[in-house]
């Protein structure tokens, strides 16, 4: 077992991917709890598609990928947040429109420019894609996300649980929503190259949803989903190395399996309670 792990980490690119993946998983899990609870799960999905479009355009114009993708995805995050808050427009339909359009733009720009990039690696992620810059950005991002959750934990709870009440008691809920959307956007941009456009939103949704099955306190949901996400990423990555499967997909499968187990635990628990 230890020999296997030691062998795996003897490759530099795996160490880099591991660092980035772990930090992205942690950020995604923490942000995911508030996003899922506020019914904003689809924002993550929409953002990753926009990110794909941006990356594809950057590649076909020969620009640096992150320098294009980051500003585009941040603008998209603000836009999607406004759409979801605005009850006049049907929020989830609007997100679906934006994400499929962005995906289409990406696919066309890749095929027209004939760039010799593997479309697969954008869509489903590639462990080889992470760079040193990614690792550094990821570390900074994780530091910001964790410190915001520690310092403003109570306010994040209040804004997630009841935005109107929080606003009435003087909390600047807009700032919290914007910061969360911004951090989600950054997490997705950095994470999508390992996990892939189509799979990154799983990192946001699964850990939160799994923890919500068994935890009864907000604090335990947050801690549980952070720990779960880390474990799932580690197991998924080892499995993908051992079995030679794509990393992103393997991590998602592990997450899905964990969700299934937690869901079963919940079902059994409620059954037992009912018979009591």
């Amino acid at each position, binding site marked *: 077992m230890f020999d296997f792990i030691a062998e795996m980490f003897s490759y530099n690119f795996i160490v880099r991917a591991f660092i980035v993946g772990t930090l992205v998983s942690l950020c995604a899990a923490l942000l995911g709890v508030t996003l899922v609870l506020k019914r904003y799960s689809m924002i993550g999905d929409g953002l990753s598609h926009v990110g794909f479009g941006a990356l594809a355009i950057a590649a076909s114009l020969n620009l640096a990928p992150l320098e294009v993708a980051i500003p585009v995805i941040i603008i998209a995050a603000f836009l999607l947040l406004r759409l979801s808050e605005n009850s006049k427009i049907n929020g989830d339909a609007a997100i679906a429109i934006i994400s499929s359009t962005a995906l289409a733009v990406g696919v066309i720009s890749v095929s027209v420019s004939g760039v010799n990039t593997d479309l697969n690696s954008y869509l489903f992620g590639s462990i080889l894609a992470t760079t040193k810059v990614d690792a550094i950005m990821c570390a900074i991002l994780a530091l910001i996300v964790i410190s915001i959750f520690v310092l403003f934990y*109570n306010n994040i709870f209040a804004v997630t649980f*009841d935005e*109107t009440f929080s*606003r009435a*008691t003087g*909390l600047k809920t807009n700032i919290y929503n914007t910061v969360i959307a911004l951090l989600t956007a950054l997490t997705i941009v950095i994470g999508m190259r390992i996990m892939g456009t189509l799979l990154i939103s799983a990192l946001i949704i699964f850990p939160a949803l799994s923890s919500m099955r068994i935890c*009864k*306190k*907000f604090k335990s949901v947050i801690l549980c989903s952070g720990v779960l996400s880390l474990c799932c990423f580690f197991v998924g990555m080892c499995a993908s190395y051992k079995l030679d499967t794509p990393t992103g997909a393997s991590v998602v499968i592990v997450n899905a399996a964990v969700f299934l187990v937690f869901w079963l635990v919940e079902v059994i628990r409620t059954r037992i309670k009912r018979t009591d």
Partner: protein
Amino acid sequence: MALITIKNASMGYEGKTVLSKLNLTVNEGDYICIVGENGSGKTTLMKCLLGLLQPTAGSISFGDGLKQREIGYLPQQTIIQQDFPASVSEVVLSGCLNKRCTMFYSKQQKEMAADNMKLTGIYDLGKKCFRELSGGQRQRVMLARALCATQKLLILDEPVTGLDPMATADMYALIKDLNKNGITIIMVSHDVNSAVSNATKILHLSRNNYFYGTAHQYLHSDVGKKFILSDCPCDDCRHRAQGGVHNV
């Protein structure tokens, strides 16, 4: 000085004016029910009182040491809260956030939360999960949270919606007790009959017009008579029914 003074205020949203030239004062110890048809501006008025909307004209001013952010607010429950994983004490404590935003709640804030949980009869539920409570228990939790935010004024948005008759009666009794202990109550309600029997003052909003007076005056006003289905049992009305002259 009154707790709240509304002077010549117009209110609305998205460019529409729903209330205009509203003048009223709320005094300490009042128990005011806001009634009226759908779309008459009950919610808009409440949002303006809470600072969630700004009046389009006129002013709302606060006196007697009341700050806008120190109003205890009991909103209607949202879909998000139906399956929210949070313990009762987490929810109640979040009412303290208007005082001081720190990383941890102080001992004082925790004591205040415990006192308010005892007051609303949910102290034993502190560790329970919010989503596992009954409708009546949930409303008590929300009320305890609102009490953590205020010492003076509660604004309640249809607090008995979806409660069974027992829980409704309990809720009204609890609100009345709080009012007797000196907390001013402003309640938006569709339940006009209970409003008249519990509240000291009624604000009836209708399109382009409003009535503001005591519950007794309301019962005998034109708008009140139209809105209330049951017969008024007071001496004046019985007298009138027998053909006498009504003089309120």
